[in-house]
């Protein structure tokens, strides 16, 4: 369980997060949504431990985040940043290998790296140079690296977590589905996922919980069908539009064509 207790964050004098609280249970996927600048990424950074909190606290499996050392944290959660610039000519295999060396000792590093690349649909890419890949391919390589670091959803008798910052933002539709299914599998294996998302429809399809933010506060949270409403779309995103329900899956969806701003 990741518990976020009433956290606030100030960045260069500006209050960016204000009293944000929610829980992430193992086995579930929580998506953080909201307009640009609403504090989604900042929330994720606060949970990953890289930002200092001005108030509140975060606990991961009952351990206070501020008391965990970096290498202890690295065994409990993996983080996928929005985009990663690599300054030296690493091969794909070497980037993925960075995740391996962050993980607890494994007996078959070679297999693990191959499996991770396969999982993100990049089998056969290990000998390519990272910088020569497209943005979407680079993002999937980084996810493979994180999957090597957090090789199983449960480890040392504890659930582990994936923190994903816009994991599908630069992917084609097929790979969006691949990656969301991968995250879903991680949940079904007993781990937890927190993802910052822009695509509300994908979120509604895959997330168990939706945390909707605006201006550094949570405006609504709960199951996607409860959070994603006509009123919320107008109040949070400033889009007057109808939220419909796809009959086959019983999930809500929005059509941008139907919006008026």
């Amino acid at each position, binding site marked *: 369980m990741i518990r976020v207790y009433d956290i606030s964050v100030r960045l260069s004098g500006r209050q960016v997060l204000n009293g944000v609280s929610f829980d992430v249970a193992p086995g579930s996927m929580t998506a953080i949504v909201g307009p640009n600048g609403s504090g989604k990424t900042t929330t994720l*950074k606060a949970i*990953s*431990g*890289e930002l200092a909190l001005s108030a509140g606290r975060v606990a991961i499996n009952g351990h206070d985040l501020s008391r965990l*050392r*970096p*290498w*202890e*944290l*690295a*065994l409990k959660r*993996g*983080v996928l*940043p929005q985009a*990663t*610039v*690599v*300054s*030296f*000519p*690493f*091969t*794909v*295999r*070497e*980037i993925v*290998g*960075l*995740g391996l*060396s*962050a993980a607890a000792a494994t007996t078959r590093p070679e297999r693990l790296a191959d499996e991770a690349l396969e999982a993100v649909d990049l089998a056969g890419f*290990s*000998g*390519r140079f990272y*910088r020569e890949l497209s943005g979407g391919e680079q993002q999937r390589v980084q996810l493979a690296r994180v999957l090597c*670091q957090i090789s199983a959803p449960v480890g040392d008798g504890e659930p582990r977590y994936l923190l994903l910052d816009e994991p599908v933002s630069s992917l084609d539709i097929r790979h969006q589905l691949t990656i969301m299914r991968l995250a879903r599998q991680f949940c079904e294996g007993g781990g937890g996922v927190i993802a910052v998302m822009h695509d509300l429809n994908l979120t509604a399809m895959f997330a168990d919980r939706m945390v909707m933010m605006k201006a550094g506060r949570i405006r609504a949270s709960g199951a996607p069908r409860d959070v994603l409403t006509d009123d919320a779309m107008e109040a949070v995103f400033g889009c007057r539009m109808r939220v419909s329900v796809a009959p086959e899956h019983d999930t809500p969806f929005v059509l941008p064509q139907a919006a008026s701003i």
Partner: protein
Amino acid sequence: MGGRSAPELAGELLHAWRRGDRSRLARFVIVVLAALALATFATSIVTGAADASLGNVLRWLAGEAAADQGLSARDRIIILDIRLPRAVLGMLVGAALAVSGAVMQGLFRNPLADPGLVGVSSGASLGAVLAIVLGSAALAPLLALFGVYALPLGAFCGGLATTVLLYRIATRGGQTSVATMLLAGIALGALANAVTGVLVFIADDKQLRDLTFWGLGSLAGASWTKIAAAGPIILLALATTPFLARGLNAITLGEAAAFHMGIPVQRLKNIAILSVAAATGASVAVCGGIGFVGIVVPHLLRLVIGPDHRYLLPAAALLGGTMLIFADMLARTIVSPAELPIGIITAFVGAPFFLWILLRGRSHMGL
């Protein structure tokens, strides 16, 4: 690697390399570089104006020749007190410069960082000059306490101050700007040189004699005393690098990503900055500023074995030492019996090389 035939080994290296795993290749290259370093070291001892051939030296070392045969007493002195310390110092300083370059490039996430280019060497020179000029006046009792270490210590402090300042200026929010770093480095270097100029201006005649060799950058003054002064500091700095390697690998993805992967980033940066300052400071204290080794060596190695610091750092130490001894052999044989300052040779090779990296990598470095 033992127990397999050469074709088997080559096949295995090639297979791993195709799959993007250059670690086996890197280990192989390190073994080759170690052999090369040994060979260059031996060659430099038997090369020079005086005649002390390889055969004679070996016979003497084996204890086969009588005192007056093969190697004259003069040759023995030349070898023991001139060439050997020179080769040892060359190996140490070359390793220090190349490894400092590699560590700094890793830390700044940019292949153009080099202690010589971004003012760290100038800062170290200033520290050493301060030690010389103030050493015979205001700070005399304090410096007497440190003995032969006073100069390396002064250089270390100067180098450390410059590196810390540079990092503060060029890094904001965990990201280092290449352009800011290079320009700030030029400014800091110029400032350090200006202060050094003032100190030279107020120095007395004796101090001036001590100061003149700073500008040159040379191994010519190598002695066992200098090795005793700089050697331990350089070795200590080199000894930290195995502990830095994994962190420097992780930090190439950015400071946040390194933290996510379990690296205590602040501690990594502190140790890296300390060892760069120590290695550069000690080198500058005994040899003056020798430029470009820290750029050329790591870059060449990255082309072959890749940027993994676990292999890059030891390989850089070996190749740096080898290249500096080689450059020194050139320096003392091209215009023999006179000598060129070694800095001229490293600059002739290094400066065009630097421009080549700059032009090739412009798009990657945001310039």
